[in-house]
Structure formats: structure tokens, C-alpha cells
């Protein structure tokens, strides 16, 4: 199969499904980065077209060009055969092109309803019809089968729920062409299913959909065709029935990966941390132990209290009851400072809000926890500062022009690597990784898992939180299941089935759980 032959044709390719949007030589340069090299691609009306590629391959950039968020450097875009400038988001929306972006770009202080109608408010004589808007928004949300209230402030919802609202918002404006950029990264399985139902329904209504994801199983579940980007170049387009996982990965990274979940088993050593009946806001009565050389996985739905539990353990939030033992001795952890001094490290859930200083350089972000170590007396050692940053950039293959580039200029997945990377040089004993691989590509995932093994071999312990079951399932030596702030079940490595774990995490009825502790 030689997709290049098709790509090289400058003329529109007439194919069974009418071509709705066509890119000819579309190109984008940022200062220092050639993010998208001239791309030719035609989208057919009513198809679900997946786009896959490594972190920094140019997927989000492509989307930003199509939605008028960024101006293109060169090339042409044809909408239904007519050239389209796509200079502003407004113009894209007027054509019927909408997107749900990788990072939620809504106003977190406004209500769900206000966000749904942002820019198209319902007003009479200049007065907002708030109640009518809430009613209307609620109807749309219910109609889509999302179980969410329209009157609450958006910021009070989980990131996953916000993402659903963003999706709902995108569907209500006469959309003909809808783009999803990694929509499931923060969704639980249940929410993802709701989203897939929505996407299929839109397809049924004739909407063309671009679907970007790092999860191959989703691509195969949803898409009709799939295009692969590598380093800003379109490597090829395949019909989904004529390709497979291995081929796509090979196209994406130009090599094959034998095994993503690389698990090394160590005999667990002495306990590093033990919690006894720890309670606080959002979690109750949690008792667990993490030993040296062990990965303890916490699985549950988003909002099950796992992040609240670890941030409290880390001293960021108050605990209302219970004890913490560190290496066998009872300790008080009243601030994150105490926790870090003991030897804890936390890579938090939300990279934008908790993980990164976006408008500062990559190097500063990576070194933030270790400035004390790389300063001699009063002054920072320039050589060490550079060396440490470059070591993480190379080790995690963070795609950035220099360590001095601003974190905000990196692609989503590469930003995530900084959140993890900043703790690797810290020398902690207990690493808490909260959703560490959100938005990270397969190759790097494998690399991160290999790093976990390295940390364990040095005698560290890991708490791994993930809403993506295969990840915790394949990596955790001990797997705790959380539901509504309680620890409801515990399993050893690969001892329970996926179905059992899912039921435990989801179970609506308490009695179902008799004897599962």
C-alpha cells in the first residue's frame, strides 16, 4: 500500500463519501519548531477519521489550524470545494467546524449553562434569560444521556465532566464537522462510553468527526479511517479494517514496541508508609501499606477519593482522623513540606492547575523541587542546573527546542512528561503518581513504566493512581479499588478479572459487596 501516491495528488480525490474538507500543503511553523510539514489530506463527509501520532507529532496543531485558533504558515484548506481562510474561530464555527480541545477551554467560574451558551446567550432586551438558559442546557445534557446538573459552576465538576460539557457545547451549534482532541484522557470508562454513544449518534446524523487519541483500542472501536502523523508529516492513511495495532504503532514511531507494560517483580522490602484508618474530606478509613520495591495501584472512578487521599497523605489537605507511619514510626504530616522532607514526591493529577508553571521555561519546571540541591551556598550552580534539566529532557525524550522554551509551548503529552520528570532526580522514597500517563504516547508510556522499574529497584515504593484499568492492572503489585471515598476491595497482581474490578468500582448497590474486603 502506498498512501504517498494518493497524497501527492494536488487535485481533490473523488471518493465514495463526498469530500467535505480538504487540506492541500497545510503547514505550520512556530518559532523554533516546524510543527506541521505540508500535509495533504481529505476528510469524507460522515466519516469518523482518527488521527494518531506521538507527543508533539502535530495533531493538536492541525486542529488549531482547522478551527482558526492559530493562523497557518502556508497551504490551503477547501471546505466543500471552496477555499476557506479559517482565520478566526468565528469563521470556522460559521462553517460548522467545532472542536473539543485537549485542555478544557471554558470559563471555570461560570455555570455549566452559561458555558454552553457562551457567545450565543439567550437574552431579551439585553437582559440574560438565565433560567431559560439553564433549562435549555439541562435538556441538552439530559438528551445526550450525561448525568450532570446545568446550574452548577463548571469548576466544581471533575475534569472529565468538564470535558463532557465541552463536548455537549460543541454539538449544539449546527455542527457539521466536529473534532475531538484526546477527549477520553480524563474520562472514566463509563463517561467514555457516554461519549462514544454521542459520537456514533452524531455520525448517524451525518456529522464528520476527527478523533485524536493515544488509545489504540478506541481508534479501532470508533474510527472508519485512521491517519498517522510523525514529526509533522503525514505518514499515511488506512481504512480501519485493513490495518492493525502493530502497523499503526510502527508508522507512528518508526520502530515496533514489543511490550508496553513492562513489569519487573521485586520482593517487597520493609514498609515505607502505612496509613491506619486515615480519613479526611472525600475519603474515609483508608488503611494501606506501601513497601519498598512495590507498586500499589489505586483504581476507581474519577471522584472516588483517590486524589483526595494522596494529597492529604502528602500534607496538602487536612486529615480528620487516623495515623500515618513512615518507616515504622508514627509521623505528623502537616504540610507538603513535611512530606517532601520525609521523602515523598507527588506528581499531581492536573498538569495545568497543579503540575506546571506554564509561562516559565521547561528547565525551571524540571528543577523546581531540587533547587536546594543544585545550589551551592547562596548561588545556583549553572552547570548543574543545565545538566539536570538536559538529563530529564533526554531521558524522557521531552520534545522541546531547548530547556529555555516555555512549558506552555510544548504539546500536551510533553508537558505531562515534565510533571513526572521533575521528581525523578529528587531521590524520594515514595513516589505518588496521579494519572501519570494522561495524554502520553505509547512509546513514552513504555519508557515511563521502565522508569518505574528503575525507581523500584533502588528501593523506592510507588502509589499509582489511574482511571485507565489496564495500566493499574498490569503494573500494580497490590491493587486497591476505591468507591465513593472508601477502599472497597484489594487484589494481588493479576488475581482478579477486569470485570470484577469494574463492578467493585462501579457497584451502585451496597449489598453486592458483601465479603469483598
Amino acid at each position, binding site marked *: 500500500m502506498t498512501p504517498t501516491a494518493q497524497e501527492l495528488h494536488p487535485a481533490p480525490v473523488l471518493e465514495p463519501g463526498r469530500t467535505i474538507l480538504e487540506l492541500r500543503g497545510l503547514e505550520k511553523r*512556530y*518559532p*523554533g519548531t516546524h510543527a506541521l510539514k505540508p500535509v495533504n489530506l481529505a476528510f469524507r463527509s460522515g466519516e469518523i477519521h482518527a488521527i494518531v501520532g*506521538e507527543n*508533539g507529532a502535530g495533531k493538536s496543531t492541525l486542529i488549531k489550524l482547522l478551527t482558526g485558533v492559530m493562523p497557518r504558515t502556508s497551504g490551503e484548506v477547501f471546505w466543500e470545494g471552496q477555499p476557506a481562510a479559517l482565520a478566526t474561530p468565528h469563521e470556522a464555527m460559521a462553517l460548522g467546524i467545532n472542536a473539543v480541545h485537549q485542555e478544557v477551554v471554558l470559563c471555570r467560574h461560570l455555570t455549566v449553562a452559561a458555558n454552553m451558551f457562551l457567545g450565543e446567550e439567550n437574552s431579551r432586551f439585553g437582559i440574560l434569560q438565565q433560567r431559560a438558559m439553564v433549562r435549555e442546557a439541562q435538556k441538552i445534557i439530559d438528551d445526550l444521556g450525561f448525568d450532570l446538573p446545568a446550574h452548577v459552576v463548571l469548576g466544581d465538576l471533575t475534569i472529565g465532566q468538564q470535558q463532557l460539557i465541552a463536548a455537549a457545547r460543541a454539538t449544539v451549534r449546527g455542527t457539521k464537522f466536529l473534532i475531538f482532541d484526546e477527549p477520553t484522557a480524563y474520562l472514566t470508562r463509563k463517561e467514555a462510553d457516554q461519549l462514544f454513544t454521542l459520537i456514533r449518534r452524531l455520525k448517524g446524523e451525518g456529522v464528520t468527526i476527527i478523533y485524536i487519541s493515544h488509545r489504540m483500542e478506541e481508534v479501532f472501536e470508533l474510527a472508519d479511517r485512521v491517519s498517522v502523523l510523525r*514529526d509533522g508529516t503525514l505518514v499515511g492513511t488506512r481504512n480501519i479494517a485493513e490495518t492493525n495495532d502493530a502497523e499503526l504503532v510502527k508508522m507512528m*514511531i*518508526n520502530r515496533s514496541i514489543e511490550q508496553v507494560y513492562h513489569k519487573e517483580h521485586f520482593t517487597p522490602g520493609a514498609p515505607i508508609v502505612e496509613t491506619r484508618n486515615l480519613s479526611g474530606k472525600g475519603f474515609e478509613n483508608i488503611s494501606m501499606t506501601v513497601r519498598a520495591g512495590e507498586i500499589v495501584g489505586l483504581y476507581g472512578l474519577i471522584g472516588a477519593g483517590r486524589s483526595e487521599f494522596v494529597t492529604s497523605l*502528602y500534607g*496538602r489537605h487536612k486529615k480528620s482522623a487516623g495515623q500515618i507511619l513512615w518507616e515504622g514510626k508514627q509521623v505528623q504530616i502537616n504540610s*507538603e*513540606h513535611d512530606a*517532601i522532607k520525609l521523602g515523598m514526591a*507527588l506528581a*499531581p493529577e492536573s498538569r495545568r*492547575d*497543579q*503540575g*506546571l*508553571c*506554564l*509561562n*516559565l*521555561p521547561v528547565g*525551571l519546571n524540571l*528543577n*523546581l*523541587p531540587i*533547587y*536546594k540541591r543544585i*545550589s551551592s551556598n*547562596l*548561588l*545556583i550552580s*549553572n552547570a548543574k542546573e543545565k545538566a539536570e534539566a538536559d538529563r530529564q529532557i533526554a531521558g524522557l*525524550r521531552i*520534545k522541546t*527546542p*531547548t*530547556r*529555555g*522554551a*516555555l512549558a506552555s509551548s510544548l504539546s500536551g503529552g510533553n508537558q505531562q512528561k515534565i510533571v513526572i520528570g*521533575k521528581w525523578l532526580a529528587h531521590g524520594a522514597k515514595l513516589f505518588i503518581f496521579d494519572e501519570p500517563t494522561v495524554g502520553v504516547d505509547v*512509546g513514552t508510556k513504555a519508557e515511563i513504566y521502565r522508569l518505574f522499574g528503575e525507581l523500584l529497584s533502588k528501593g523506592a515504593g510507588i502509589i499509582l493512581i489511574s482511571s485507565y484499568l489496564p495500566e493499574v492492572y498490569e503494573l500494580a503489585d497490590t491493587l486497591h479499588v476505591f468507591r465513593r471515598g472508601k477502599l472497597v476491595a484489594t487484589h494481588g497482581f493479576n488475581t482478579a478479572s477486569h470485570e470484577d474490578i469494574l463492578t467493585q468500582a462501579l457497584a451502585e448497590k451496597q449489598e453486592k459487596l458483601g465479603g469483598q474486603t
Partner: protein
Amino acid sequence: MSIEAIPAEKPKRNYNVLFGLTLLALLVLLWIVLSLATPSFASGNNIANLLRQGSMIAIMAVGQTFVIITGGIDLSVGAVVGFATVVVALLINAGVPIALAILITLLVGVAIGLFHGFGIVKMGLPPFIITLATLTSLRGIGLLMTNGNSININSDSFTAFSRNSFIGIPNLFWMVILVGVPAYVFLHHSRWGRYLFSVGSNAEASRLSGVNVQRTIYMAYTLSGLCAAFVGVLLAARIGIGNPTQAEGWELQAIASSVIGGTSLFGAVGSVHGPLLGAFILATINNGANLLNVNSFWQRIITGALIIIIVYFDGLRRRGK
């Protein structure tokens, strides 16, 4: 994945240097134009005068910049200067040795800064509010202490300092170097400097990375208070009196200098050399306008226009085109 051959240069550092050079060029250009326009500008006396004028705002602007980098603002600095002139005047007239009087005055500045830190960190007040409160109340306290009168300082050795020069350069300008060099090292080469930036960029992320955010905020306001008190001492020496109503509106000049020097009011962007240059650009404009007999009302308008123009161009460049 190929991480393309990495160009080794640092875009950010280059940008900073470039912006600094642009400001310097602007300053030099102003000086050339003014020397041509009026013969009195280039006289040794006038230059010394200009340096003295600019120095005090420059030192305040450095302290202000630390605060702005954390995403805050310190509106109290003008009032602190006025208050400090009163404190140092009272102490010297009471017979306290000059060195000790200066030290105590500086400690008063530190105390005011700590109070701001307390209000922000512990009471959760917005920086704008707590420093605005200090601005008005400090002037009031000063007026109470002096009954609304000026205090003549009866020590010639104290006042002589501000008029004298060292190797041809006014002492006051040497004070800028005395403050500027450590400030530069502190901001760009110590970890506390990095923490100022990180707190201004994202306090929560800094906190979770082990940065002591509260201490960083205390530090920023304390340094600003300290710089302002120091300027108060210099001003008292220059005018030979203590008067709580002195330095009216200087906080705005300090903020303007900082902003002209490339500091972002959104936090996390700033330098030491920028505000210093900004202060001298402002001083030059005021000085030149005086010499050219431009109505002083116009000076204010020119300053306002300059702020808009410089910050606009800076923003354009930052956004990369």
C-alpha cells in the same frame, strides 16, 4: 522520534538581553536628542541632578519588581518613603548615631513588609487592598507623629552624603549599584529568585513541588518595604527634612518604571536591569521636559503615553511577531 538537532541558544535569555538593549538604546537616544535640543542638559550639574532624581525611583522599582513577579503589587512604597524620612529625622534629632538611626529605619521598612506578607498569607487579603490600606494609614501615622509639620534634620554629615560624589558620580547613584548588583544575583542566580518566578506563575504547582510559597511572599514584600525605607533615608538626606507627605505618587512611578522595564503585571516575568533602565528613562523625560519648559501637566501625559507604547511593543514581541 527525532528530537531535531537542538539549537543550543536560549530564546528567553536572548529576548531579555535584547529588550534590555532596546531600553538602553532608547535612553541614550533621549540623552542625545536632549543634549542637542538644550545646552543645559549635558551640563555636569544637570546630569548629576538627573541621576539623583532617577536613583531613588530606581531603587523602589527594584523592590516593586520582586513583588510584581509573584503576581502581587505594593502600593505602599511611596508612603513608606515618606514615613521613613520622618523616622530617620526623629531618630537623628534625638541624638541616635546616624548608622543606628538608618538601621532602625530600615527595620521599620522590613516590619511593614512583614505586615503585608501577614495580611496576604494569613488573613487572605488581596495585595492591592492590604498595601492600599498601608498607603493611607501610614501617611496618617506620620502626620500624627509630626503634628503635620516638617522636621529639620540637624546633622550636616547626614545631609552632606546625598550631595557628595565619589569619583565624579553622585553618591545616590552609587546606591543604585549597591542595591542593583545584589538584587540581580538574588533574582537570577539564587533559588529564591526562581521561587519568586514560580510562585508568580503557579502557586499551587510550586507548593506541591516543595516551594515554601508563604515564605516567598513574605520575602517579596519585605524586600520591597526594605527598598522603600532605604529610599526614605536617601530622600531625607537629600532634602534635609522628615515629612510624611513626601514622595506622593512615587509608588506609581515605581510601578511604571517596572512595567516599562518589561515586568508583567500578571507575574512571572521581570528582571532587575529593566526597572532600573525604566526609572532613568522616566527621570530623563521629566528632566528634559523641565529644561524645555514643557508644562508639567504635559510630563504626566507623556509618561502615560510612553507606558502604553513600550508595553504594547513588548507584548507584540513576546507573542512572537
